[in-house]
């Protein structure tokens, strides 16, 4: 499903954020990406979605060489991925419902079907009652759940979440993790970046541990 081989990433004018990363994940697998701040977790996830391109090596997702993808093909890759960003990237000029609708608006779904999908996704994260609210009115945990609803509304085969439990209390964090795991249990490949050791210890079957851009454990 996802495979990195000898991947390096150097940001323009910066040091190597990732160096010689090789690993591969099977469909339906659950993997944690851990490491200290600045270790390269976000960079690794961005390579999967072609938000960043590798400087060397190849990233293959769903049989596609993502690193060499043409600009025009990138949107179609992303529609098959569920992305939860470290900084949410919610839009505060529109309702909860419209935030989740956004990724469907550029797809091919008829409006009626799209609306049904949006409600189903909101229901899964427990936000259906808040569909008319503005995201600004939501708590940190609720905003994170909204970001998850938006990520899964396209029913992606791969879900990539960047520190979804950061800055949340234990209870909210647990709820987020439960929601994400529930998608994994129905076959969605889940890649989850976190520096929550306890979380990894509890669920961590597959851990990609990064240290200064290198894979310390795979």
């Amino acid at each position, binding site marked *: 499903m996802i495979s990195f081989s000898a991947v390096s990433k150097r940001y323009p004018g910066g040091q190597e954020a990732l160096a010689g990363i090789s690993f591969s994940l099977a469909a339906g697998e659950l993997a944690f990406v851990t490491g200290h701040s600045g270790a390269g977790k976000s960079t690794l996830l961005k390579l999967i*979605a072609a*938000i960043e391109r590798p400087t060397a090596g190849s990233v293959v997702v769903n049989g596609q060489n993502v690193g060499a993808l043409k*600009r*025009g093909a990138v*949107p*179609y*890759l*992303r*529609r098959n991925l569920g*992305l939860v*960003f470290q900084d949410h*990237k919610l*839009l505060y*000029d529109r309702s909860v419902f419209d935030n989740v609708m*956004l*990724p469907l*608006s*550029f*797809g*091919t779904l*008829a*409006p009626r079907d799209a609306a049904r999908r949006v409600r189903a996704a909101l229901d899964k994260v427990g936000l259906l009652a808040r569909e008319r609210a503005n995201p600004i009115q939501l708590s940190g945990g609720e905003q994170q759940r909204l970001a998850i609803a*938006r990520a899964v509304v*396209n029913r992606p085969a791969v879900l990539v979440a960047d520190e979804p439990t950061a800055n949340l209390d234990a209870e909210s964090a647990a709820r987020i993790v439960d929601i994400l795991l529930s998608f994994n249990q129905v076959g969605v490949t889940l890649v989850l970046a976190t520096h929550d050791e306890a979380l990894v210890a509890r669920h961590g079957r597959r851990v990609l541990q990064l240290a200064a851009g290198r894979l310390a454990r795979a």
Partner: protein
Amino acid sequence: MRTWLRQHRGAFTRAVHKLLAQRAATLLNALVIGVALSLPAGGYALLANLQGVAQRFTFEPQVSVFLKPEAKRAELEARLRADRRVAALRFVSRDEALAELRVAEGLADVVAALERNPLPDAFVVRAADGGAAALEGLAGTLRALPGVANVQVDSAWAERLAALARIGRLALAALAVLLATGLVAVTFNTIRLQILTQREEIEVSQLLGATDAFVRRPFFYLGLLQGLAGGVLALAILWAGLAVLNAGVRDLAQAYGSSFQLVFLPGRDALAVVAFAALLGWLGALLSVSKYLR
């Protein structure tokens, strides 16, 4: 196909919403464009009206050849007929000319007061080629003929009017180009501001799988609609301007016993103004999008 239509409708709807959400700014922009476009459109309408007036008089490319009293008419007529540049020929005797004058309004008394006929015999020559150069050439030849006192090219003032109209059209074209550039610049800037204020939405959309075409489409519609609104406004301004002018023209025309009125642009031209404005708006959007949406 259905998806494609839906996406265009979606982009169009979003563009309309953006315009409505910023009614004041939209109106102001449309007004700027409208005023700018109404100038060349108005000039064009006035010119078209003037040409309409000019065309009511028929300009035959005529040359009057006045004869000296001692001229030999038959010999001259033969030479004129032999010239290929002469399409037709009419002799007007001095008596006929005087009779014509007598009938002309207000001149009967003057003519009656004359002791003798002061008018010369004349040939009225219709030239085959109405061009200014050809007429001058012909006139030059005729002037040199024996027995010819004077030659007058009657269509000279028509030529002059046509030349003036040409200059007017040229000036209008220059003005139109200038203002069209301004219109593109106005749209360019509007769209630039729109892109800046929607930077976040654009970025998030792209991260979630929006194509470039999807992101750009609403801005194209925005530019197009703004241009369209400006074009319609320009026509409205022109129409109002002509109505005001016509109030004055009516009085003037009545003084000359005419019912002349300035007319609005013909439907085809009016449509062209609106289409042109929309096209320029689209162009401004295109330039802005290619510069600021990467």
